């Protein structure tokens, strides 16, 4: 299947502290998207995950994205004091389209009051939450070990607590999806991205059979992941073309048009 207007809801820009990235310039992202029929993406800044003042990374990302169709997703660590001001400035100065959190790197549980406070703030600003369930396979962590989100219990409790903002579950493992399949299918605010669809064979066929095709959004997590691996999982899957179009574009549009 050839696509010409896909949307990548999970792409990144910046450096990764644990290994050299060969293709991390913004022009690399634009080029691989163009080569593969993706019109634009929602970009978050990798540097901000590790900066003590994440907003400095966001300022850099804003400069990079200026004048392009790419959209800015603000990285926030709600354990830091006055993170609220970052969101306020992100809205005013960067026209951010969502807030991305990394609880496995910033080491807080999903029932932490400060994190739940962030979710309240997102409702106020009508912004979706990008919840990163893990960034990379924990087996290959180096120096800084990620903590784990307990699935299903911790995640399910969170989903039933925060029901009034759109939530994108990012990099969820295919094996854990059945445990929260009901929530994904039935809760209108809950979506998943495809960036960790890697096993077993024919996982997209299985997932669309189980979840339907309306809650799955294409995301690559490029340049950490191989974009073509994540893309082929959808474009070469044996599912209807209509489902592919929904995953590659339509569902992302629905996600951002969520009625608060």
């Amino acid at each position, binding site marked *: 299947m050839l696509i010409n207007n896909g949307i990548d809801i999970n792409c990144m820009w910046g450096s990764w502290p644990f*290994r*050299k*990235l*060969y*293709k991390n310039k913004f022009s690399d992202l634009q080029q*691989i998207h163009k080569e593969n029929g993706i019109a634009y993406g929602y970009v978050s800044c990798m540097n901000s995950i590790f900066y003590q003042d994440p907003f400095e990374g966001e300022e850099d990302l804003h400069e990079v994205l200026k004048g392009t169709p790419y959209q800015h997703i603000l990285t926030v660590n709600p354990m830091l004091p006055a993170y609220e001001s970052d969101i306020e400035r992100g809205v005013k100065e960067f026209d951010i389209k969502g807030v991305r959190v990394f609880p496995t790197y910033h080491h807080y549980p999903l029932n932490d009051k400060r994190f739940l406070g962030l979710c309240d703030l997102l409702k106020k600003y009508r912004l979706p939450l990008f919840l990163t369930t893990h960034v*990379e*396979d*924990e*087996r*290959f*962590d*180096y120096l800084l*070990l990620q903590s784990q989100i307990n699935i299903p219990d911790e995640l399910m409790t969170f989903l039933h607590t925060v029901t009034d903002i759109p939530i994108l579950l990012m990099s969820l493992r295919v094996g854990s999806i059945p445990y929260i399949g009901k929530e994904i299918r039935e809760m209108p605010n809950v979506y998943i991205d495809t960036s960790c*669809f*890697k*096993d*077993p*064979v*024919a*996982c997209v066929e299985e997932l669309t059979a189980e979840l339907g095709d309306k809650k799955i959004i294409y995301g690559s997590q*490029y*340049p*950490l*992941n*191989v*974009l*073509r*691996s*994540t*893309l*082929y*999982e959808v474009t*070469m*899957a*044996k599912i209807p073309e209509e489902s592919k179009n929904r995953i590659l574009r339509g569902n992302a549009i629905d996600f951002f048009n969520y009625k608060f």
Partner: protein
Amino acid sequence: MIYDMHAHLWDGQYDKNKKQIMTICENYNVSKIFISSLKDGVERPTEEDITRLNNATWQFMREEPSTIRGWCYVNPANKNALSVLRHGIEDCGMSGMKLWIATFCDDPLVFPLAEYCAEHQVPILIHTFYKVVGQLKYESLGTNVANLARRYPELKILMAHYGASCLREIKPIVPYKNVRVDTSGSIYHRDDIDYLKKMIGVKRIIFGTDMPLISYLLVYGQIMEADLTQEERKAVFSGNAKCLLERS
């Protein structure tokens, strides 16, 4: 043309796995698939286990002779290991030996098996996997592979999963030209294949997936995205495997 040098049947799942693998072959034009049969969660399979597992591989080879090739799975700690290997290669026509997690690959128990493989010019596929959490007791690493390669320079070795954490596990095997690596597994870092090319050259990279556990398309996409020329891509997909399997 595509050769997938690393795929599995899992014990007790013959029909399901066979269907999964043959569906992938048909959907994506895979020419040859090299299978080993394993028993999930069992580090040291018994002689009976090994017989049953290799029989499953052989059955698949006979049922799909144009597509399926076999690795003979051996537990070096079993007394009959050498005769199992001999039977697999000479009677069943398997392409090489598979070592998993029963012993390190440089354990002296492996030496007579390695000598047989070197003498008969058949490769050894060695599960090689470094991880921060959950490392198994006898899970080989790049240094183990390097030790075996140094001891038997004529032995053809295929280091599976490029060691999983290639930034750490490739350096030990760089000097040993008799070691190639396969691309199988669930790691899909954007830059791993480019790093392998830089460190050991394209001729030592061989396509494998680890299906049905892992998605075929995941690894296929990795090769398609890497900075390889058309010729280099062909070599990774099949040419290098053919070289590995050649016997003079």
